[in-house]
């Protein structure tokens, strides 16, 4: 059973979607929200597997709402017509439905979701796991200006502190997010993400090479070619972790 939340400011639009979803018994609509603030609240309290998200809403847009979330659930966007949004989708291959929604398109989108889930089941986290820590397979929504991405944490090589922001390195992209490195460190799984120095958090699974460096420090070369220095203090910790 997939537990879903519909977030849309229009009652009729929500009703229409619910009606269409009746043909898919595996989807259970557990809640509805009429704006971004309400959406965030319901997502945090109900922890749904999937959200249907309208982009243009009063107050904050759907994109803004997603970038506020610590952990992005599976999202299917719904929009009537929005050139900019459609462009963002094309670039990042996020899934979206155009209103009025075609039943066939909805079926396709849900099937795609099911396939992804079979690969990496999303609902097999033991309930006891501390929800405030992001796992390796969790995804985050990153928005930088007009562009947005869903990124699996396991694909992120590096977080770099830039003032109040953090630069996120994945693939060929390095967008900025409004989060401090310290706040990130608290939320990330320390078995995977390691604070190399004051300015960098690296993904231990995506290190290409390790070399000794001045003062007993280390120099890490990441899979993307970035060279990161490990401070002396952290080197001790790093060696401890790696040698078990």
């Amino acid at each position, binding site marked *: 059973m997939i537990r879903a939340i519909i977030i849309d400011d*229009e*009652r*009729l*639009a929500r*009703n*229409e979607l619910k*009606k269409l979803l009746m043909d898919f018994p595996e989807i259970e609509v557990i809640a509805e929200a009429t*704006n971004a*603030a309400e959406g965030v609240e319901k997502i945090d309290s109900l922890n749904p597997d999937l959200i249907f998200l309208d982009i*243009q809403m*009063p*107050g904050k847009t759907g994109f803004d709402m997603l970038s506020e979330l610590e952990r992005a659930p599976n999202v299917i966007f719904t929009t*009537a*017509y*929005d050139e900019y949004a459609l462009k963002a989708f094309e670039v990042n291959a996020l899934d979206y439905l*155009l*209103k*009025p*929604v075609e039943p066939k398109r909805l079926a396709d989108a849900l099937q795609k979701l099911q396939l992804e889930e079979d690969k990496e089941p999303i609902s097999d986290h033991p309930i006891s796991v501390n929800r405030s820590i992001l796992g390796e397979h969790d995804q985050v929504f990153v928005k930088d200006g007009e562009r947005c991405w869903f990124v699996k944490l396991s694909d992120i090589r590096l977080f770099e502190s830039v003032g109040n922001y953090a630069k996120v390195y994945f693939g060929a992209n390095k967008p900025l997010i409004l989060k401090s490195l310290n706040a990130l460190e608290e939320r990330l799984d320390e078995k995977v993400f390691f604070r190399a120095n004051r300015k960098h958090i690296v993904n231990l699974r995506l290190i290409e090479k390790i070399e000794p460096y001045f003062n007993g420090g280390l120099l890490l070369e990441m899979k993307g070619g970035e060279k990161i220095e490990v401070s002396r203090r952290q080197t001790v910790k790093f060696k401890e972790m790696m040698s078990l």
Partner: protein
Amino acid sequence: MLSTPAFMYHAEPMAYLIWPLVQFRDDQEGEKVRFGSIHCISMPKNANRYYWWCQISGWGFLALVMVLFSSTLDQKITQKLVGFLVIFVFAGILTTHIFREVIRRSGWLLLPVEKALPKLLVGVLLICVADSLIRFAFIEALDLSTSKSKMDFISRLLATTFENGLLIIPWTLIYYFYHYIENSRRQQLDTLKLEALVKELELKTIKAHINPHFIFNALNSIRALVDENPVRARTAITELSNILRSSMQAEKLETVTFEKELNIVKDYLALEHIRFEDRLQIEYVIDEDTLDQPIPPMMLQTLVENAIKHGISKQIGGGKVKIVSDFKDNYHELMIQNTGYLNGARNGDGFGLASTKNRLQILFGQKANFDIREIDGNTVEARVLIPIDMSK
């Protein structure tokens, strides 16, 4: 041995052959063809090069032909002949080039044929005489005159001028008609370009008038209504058709009555009300006498759409749209008020606001006005003033 002028007569049929071969391509580089508000550089930059290439090769070819003629007719190629030919080519190029400058500067090419021809004729005559005089002057100065062509000055001048005419008239005809054809071809192209531009603008305005976001949202609401409230769904479809129809007709009309426009706006707001439900309140304050007043088509509609897009849809709790129409002094005053704030978000809409004012002043003169401002802290008011036409 042939005298030089006689030789020229022989060469004359050749001249007819040669001129058409050397295609004249004049430059009009930098000359802008005004066509409505479209300016375009009409000719490629290397046109000037073609012109000179044609001039030099044309006259040079002519000189070459003369040399060949003289040698086949067993005439010795004397230094005098070479000198004569150099002067012939030089004078020809110089005079026709001056002629071209005159034609270009005085814009004869743009005149209708019947007006241009007399001017060209006079020009040709003057140029032919000038050419002869230049040649005489050089021949005298360099002492190149052939002893056998001793004639009195007047008859020599007439003969040479006539001979020049046989070259310069074809030159002029080719020059003129080449440009005549070129111009009409270009005009056709410009007309086509203009038509395409008009079409594009028409499409753009239709798109600007009816926001696709609105259409698809309306359709989505109507689909939901089909089960929930079939009667309302049916009227909604009629309302949507009215809006689509009037937006397509809008381009063809300069003005519509306020009543007609108001009906579209009522349909529009009824549809938005389906979407926003109790988040949208609508109020009309209409002086019945203003219903006959002319206004630009789709103007009110655009303003109301903006009120929804930038006002109501941004408010979590929704808001109110109020439409006021009355007479104030000698003006028809239209006001659209909506809950919301006037801020930077309006910038993207700048085009719509500027074009609204522009359109009003084109239709109703400088006294017509349009402004938009914030009142009472959370209301935005757009106000249109149209002077009343007393003659009606």
